[in-house]
Protein backbone atom coordinates (compact mmCIF):
# COMPACT_ATOMS: atom_id res chain seq x y z
CA UNK A 1 0.00 0.00 0.00
CA UNK A 2 1.35 3.40 -0.96
CA UNK A 3 1.62 5.86 1.93
CA UNK A 4 0.09 9.25 1.22
CA UNK A 5 2.37 12.18 2.09
CA UNK A 6 -0.49 14.64 2.23
CA UNK A 7 -2.67 12.48 4.49
CA UNK A 8 -4.62 14.45 7.09
CA UNK A 9 -4.83 11.40 9.37
CA UNK A 10 -1.41 12.12 10.83
CA UNK A 11 -1.63 14.10 14.04
CA UNK A 12 2.05 14.93 14.24
CA UNK A 13 3.24 18.54 14.46
CA UNK A 14 5.18 18.19 11.21
CA UNK A 15 1.95 17.27 9.35
CA UNK A 16 0.11 20.14 11.04
CA UNK A 17 2.90 22.57 10.08
CA UNK A 18 2.84 21.29 6.48
CA UNK A 19 -0.93 21.76 6.25
CA UNK A 20 -0.65 25.29 7.67
CA UNK A 21 2.10 26.20 5.17
CA UNK A 22 0.15 24.70 2.25
CA UNK A 23 -2.94 26.67 3.26
CA UNK A 24 -1.33 30.01 4.13
CA UNK A 25 1.61 30.10 1.75
CA UNK A 26 0.95 28.15 -1.47
CA UNK A 27 3.65 28.15 -4.16
CA UNK A 28 1.56 30.49 -6.36
CA UNK A 29 1.77 33.11 -3.58
CA UNK A 30 5.40 32.43 -2.67
CA UNK A 31 6.73 32.74 -6.24
CA UNK A 32 4.09 34.58 -8.26
CA UNK A 33 4.66 35.30 -11.97
CA UNK A 34 1.86 37.89 -12.17
CA UNK A 35 1.11 40.93 -10.02
CA UNK A 36 -1.92 43.25 -9.93
CA UNK A 37 -1.79 46.19 -12.40
CA UNK A 38 -1.24 48.77 -9.63
CA UNK A 39 2.19 47.23 -8.89
CA UNK A 40 3.39 48.79 -12.19
CA UNK A 41 4.83 51.87 -10.45
CA UNK A 42 8.34 53.01 -9.55
CA UNK A 43 7.22 53.29 -5.91
CA UNK A 44 7.23 49.48 -5.69
CA UNK A 45 10.87 49.39 -6.85
CA UNK A 46 12.14 51.00 -3.62
CA UNK A 47 11.72 47.78 -1.60
CA UNK A 48 13.48 45.68 -4.24
CA UNK A 49 16.43 48.11 -4.39
CA UNK A 50 16.67 47.92 -0.58
CA UNK A 51 16.96 44.11 -0.79
CA UNK A 52 19.55 44.38 -3.61
CA UNK A 53 21.59 46.80 -1.48
CA UNK A 54 21.35 44.42 1.51
CA UNK A 55 22.78 41.61 -0.65
CA UNK A 56 25.74 43.86 -1.56
CA UNK A 57 26.18 44.84 2.11
CA UNK A 58 26.34 41.18 3.19
CA UNK A 59 28.64 40.06 0.34
CA UNK A 60 31.12 42.94 0.80
CA UNK A 61 30.92 42.46 4.59
CA UNK A 62 31.84 38.77 4.28
CA UNK A 63 34.95 39.74 2.27
CA UNK A 64 35.92 42.44 4.82
CA UNK A 65 35.47 40.01 7.74
CA UNK A 66 37.60 37.39 5.96
CA UNK A 67 40.61 39.67 5.43
CA UNK A 68 40.47 42.01 8.44
CA UNK A 69 41.07 45.68 9.34
CA UNK A 70 44.71 45.94 8.20
CA UNK A 71 43.69 44.78 4.72
CA UNK A 72 40.68 47.09 4.38
CA UNK A 73 42.75 50.12 5.53
CA UNK A 74 46.06 49.58 3.75
CA UNK A 75 45.51 47.72 0.45
CA UNK A 76 43.81 49.27 -2.57
CA UNK A 77 41.49 46.26 -3.02
CA UNK A 78 40.69 46.37 0.69
CA UNK A 79 39.83 50.08 0.50
CA UNK A 80 37.62 49.33 -2.52
CA UNK A 81 35.66 46.69 -0.57
CA UNK A 82 35.52 49.02 2.43
CA UNK A 83 33.95 51.69 0.20
CA UNK A 84 31.65 49.14 -1.44
CA UNK A 85 30.40 48.12 2.02
CA UNK A 86 29.95 51.75 3.13
CA UNK A 87 28.13 52.96 -0.01
CA UNK A 88 25.86 49.90 -0.26
CA UNK A 89 24.81 50.66 3.33
CA UNK A 90 24.01 54.25 2.26
CA UNK A 91 21.90 52.94 -0.64
CA UNK A 92 20.23 50.44 1.72
CA UNK A 93 19.15 53.17 4.15
CA UNK A 94 18.14 55.72 1.50
CA UNK A 95 15.88 53.23 -0.27
CA UNK A 96 14.55 51.75 2.97
CA UNK A 97 13.38 55.26 3.97
CA UNK A 98 11.90 55.86 0.48
CA UNK A 99 10.13 52.47 0.79
CA UNK A 100 8.86 53.56 4.23
CA UNK A 101 7.49 56.86 2.81
CA UNK A 102 5.76 55.03 -0.04
CA UNK A 103 4.17 52.44 2.23
CA UNK A 104 3.19 55.07 4.81
CA UNK A 105 1.27 57.17 2.27
CA UNK A 106 -0.37 53.98 0.89
CA UNK A 107 -1.37 52.98 4.46
CA UNK A 108 0.10 49.56 3.75
CA UNK A 109 -1.01 48.16 7.12
CA UNK A 110 -4.58 47.90 5.76
CA UNK A 111 -6.59 44.68 5.42
CA UNK A 112 -4.63 42.40 7.73
CA UNK A 113 -1.17 43.65 6.80
CA UNK A 114 -0.25 45.03 10.25
CA UNK A 115 2.34 42.23 10.88
CA UNK A 116 4.09 43.15 7.59
CA UNK A 117 4.27 46.80 8.67
CA UNK A 118 5.47 45.98 12.20
CA UNK A 119 8.20 43.60 10.97
CA UNK A 120 9.35 46.42 8.66
CA UNK A 121 9.53 48.85 11.60
CA UNK A 122 11.57 46.36 13.68
CA UNK A 123 13.87 45.74 10.69
CA UNK A 124 14.49 49.49 10.43
CA UNK A 125 15.34 49.71 14.16
CA UNK A 126 17.68 46.69 14.09
CA UNK A 127 19.35 48.04 10.91
CA UNK A 128 20.17 51.30 12.75
CA UNK A 129 21.91 49.32 15.53
CA UNK A 130 23.75 47.26 12.85
CA UNK A 131 24.95 50.45 11.14
CA UNK A 132 25.98 51.99 14.48
CA UNK A 133 28.09 48.96 15.45
CA UNK A 134 29.55 49.13 11.92
CA UNK A 135 30.76 52.70 12.48
CA UNK A 136 32.31 51.49 15.78
CA UNK A 137 34.04 48.58 13.98
CA UNK A 138 35.98 50.65 11.44
CA UNK A 139 39.22 50.53 13.48
CA UNK A 140 40.10 54.18 12.84
CA UNK A 141 39.96 57.52 14.66
CA UNK A 142 36.36 58.14 13.54
CA UNK A 143 35.29 54.90 15.26
CA UNK A 144 37.05 55.96 18.49
CA UNK A 145 35.51 59.45 18.30
CA UNK A 146 32.01 57.98 17.82
CA UNK A 147 32.52 55.45 20.63
CA UNK A 148 33.74 58.07 23.14
CA UNK A 149 30.87 60.42 22.31
CA UNK A 150 28.25 57.66 22.28
CA UNK A 151 29.32 56.14 25.61
CA UNK A 152 27.56 58.69 27.82
CA UNK A 153 24.44 58.66 25.64
CA UNK A 154 24.25 54.85 25.73
CA UNK A 155 24.92 54.78 29.48
CA UNK A 156 22.11 57.27 30.06
CA UNK A 157 19.65 54.79 28.54
CA UNK A 158 20.64 52.13 31.07
CA UNK A 159 21.92 49.54 28.59
CA UNK A 160 25.58 50.53 28.94
CA UNK A 161 26.18 47.66 31.36
CA UNK A 162 25.81 45.04 28.65
CA UNK A 163 26.30 47.15 25.50
CA UNK A 164 29.74 48.71 25.88
CA UNK A 165 30.50 50.88 22.84
CA UNK A 166 34.17 51.08 23.88
CA UNK A 167 34.48 47.28 23.65
CA UNK A 168 35.59 46.67 20.05
CA UNK A 169 35.27 42.88 20.32
CA UNK A 170 31.64 43.12 21.46
CA UNK A 171 30.69 45.72 18.84
CA UNK A 172 32.47 43.83 16.03
CA UNK A 173 30.90 40.51 17.10
CA UNK A 174 27.44 42.05 17.08
CA UNK A 175 28.12 43.73 13.74
CA UNK A 176 29.41 40.72 11.81
CA UNK A 177 27.28 37.95 13.36
CA UNK A 178 24.14 38.61 15.40
CA UNK A 179 22.83 41.80 13.79
CA UNK A 180 23.28 40.74 10.11
CA UNK A 181 21.50 37.44 10.89
CA UNK A 182 18.71 39.36 12.63
CA UNK A 183 18.30 41.85 9.73
CA UNK A 184 18.35 39.06 7.12
CA UNK A 185 15.80 36.93 9.01
CA UNK A 186 13.52 39.94 9.51
CA UNK A 187 13.72 40.83 5.80
CA UNK A 188 12.86 37.20 4.88
CA UNK A 189 9.90 37.30 7.28
CA UNK A 190 8.85 40.67 5.80
CA UNK A 191 8.89 39.25 2.24
CA UNK A 192 6.97 36.12 3.33
CA UNK A 193 4.33 38.37 4.92
CA UNK A 194 4.05 40.37 1.66
CA UNK A 195 3.68 37.11 -0.29
CA UNK A 196 1.04 35.79 2.13
CA UNK A 197 -1.13 38.91 2.11
CA UNK A 198 -0.33 40.22 -1.37
CA UNK A 199 0.64 43.77 -2.32
CA UNK A 200 -1.71 46.30 -0.74
CA UNK A 201 -4.30 47.67 -3.22
CA UNK A 202 -4.57 51.44 -3.81
CA UNK A 203 -6.80 53.51 -1.57
CA UNK A 204 -10.02 53.93 -3.54
CA UNK A 205 -11.34 57.45 -3.32
CA UNK A 206 -15.09 57.31 -3.05
CA UNK A 207 -16.76 60.07 -5.07
CA UNK A 208 -20.42 60.85 -4.44
CA UNK A 209 -22.60 60.41 -7.59
CA UNK A 210 -23.84 64.04 -7.45
CA UNK A 211 -20.29 65.38 -7.41
CA UNK A 212 -19.30 63.06 -10.26
CA UNK A 213 -22.18 64.26 -12.43
CA UNK A 214 -21.25 67.90 -11.69
CA UNK A 215 -17.72 67.23 -12.86
CA UNK A 216 -18.98 65.62 -16.05
CA UNK A 217 -21.13 68.69 -16.84
CA UNK A 218 -18.05 70.88 -16.66
Amino acid at each position, binding site marked *: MKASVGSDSSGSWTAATRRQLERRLPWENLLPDRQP*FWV*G*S*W*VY*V*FGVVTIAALIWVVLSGVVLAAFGPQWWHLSSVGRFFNSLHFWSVQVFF*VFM*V*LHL*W*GQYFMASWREGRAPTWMIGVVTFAVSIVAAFTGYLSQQNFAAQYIAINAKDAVNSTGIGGFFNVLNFGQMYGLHVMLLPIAVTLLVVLHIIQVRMKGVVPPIVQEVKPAVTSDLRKK
Partner: protein
Amino acid sequence: MDQPAGYLHWGFILISWPNLLLIGLMLVLFGLALILPFPGHNSVSEKEKRG
Protein backbone atom coordinates in the same frame (compact mmCIF):
# COMPACT_ATOMS: atom_id res chain seq x y z
CA MET B 1 36.83 65.75 1.42
CA ASP B 2 39.15 65.72 4.42
CA GLN B 3 37.48 68.70 6.06
CA PRO B 4 34.47 68.80 8.39
CA ALA B 5 31.20 69.43 6.52
CA GLY B 6 29.63 72.88 6.56
CA TYR B 7 26.39 73.35 8.50
CA LEU B 8 23.14 75.18 7.91
CA HIS B 9 22.11 76.90 11.15
CA TRP B 10 18.64 78.42 10.79
CA GLY B 11 16.88 79.06 14.11
CA PHE B 12 16.60 75.74 15.90
CA ILE B 13 17.49 73.82 12.71
CA LEU B 14 21.10 72.62 12.55
CA ILE B 15 21.97 70.24 9.73
CA SER B 16 25.05 69.57 7.62
CA TRP B 17 24.86 70.53 3.94
CA PRO B 18 25.55 66.95 2.74
CA ASN B 19 22.68 65.60 4.87
CA LEU B 20 20.34 68.35 3.68
CA LEU B 21 21.34 67.66 0.05
CA LEU B 22 20.68 63.92 0.52
CA ILE B 23 17.22 64.56 2.01
CA GLY B 24 16.49 66.88 -0.94
CA LEU B 25 17.60 64.20 -3.43
CA MET B 26 15.41 61.61 -1.68
CA LEU B 27 12.38 63.92 -1.94
CA VAL B 28 13.10 64.47 -5.66
CA LEU B 29 13.48 60.70 -6.21
CA PHE B 30 10.20 60.04 -4.39
CA GLY B 31 8.41 62.65 -6.49
CA LEU B 32 9.84 61.23 -9.72
CA ALA B 33 8.74 57.70 -8.73
CA LEU B 34 5.17 58.97 -8.43
CA ILE B 35 5.22 60.90 -11.72
CA LEU B 36 7.33 58.87 -14.15
CA PRO B 37 5.49 56.11 -16.06
CA PHE B 38 6.62 52.57 -15.36
CA PRO B 39 8.06 50.88 -18.49
CA GLY B 40 5.85 48.22 -20.04
CA HIS B 41 2.91 49.21 -17.88
CA ASN B 42 -0.34 50.45 -19.42
CA SER B 43 -3.01 52.00 -17.26
CA VAL B 44 -6.54 50.58 -17.21
CA SER B 45 -7.92 53.55 -19.13
CA GLU B 46 -5.46 52.98 -21.99
CA LYS B 47 -6.48 49.32 -22.18
CA GLU B 48 -10.13 50.35 -22.23
CA LYS B 49 -9.42 52.81 -25.06
CA ARG B 50 -7.90 50.05 -27.15
CA GLY B 51 -10.99 47.95 -26.43
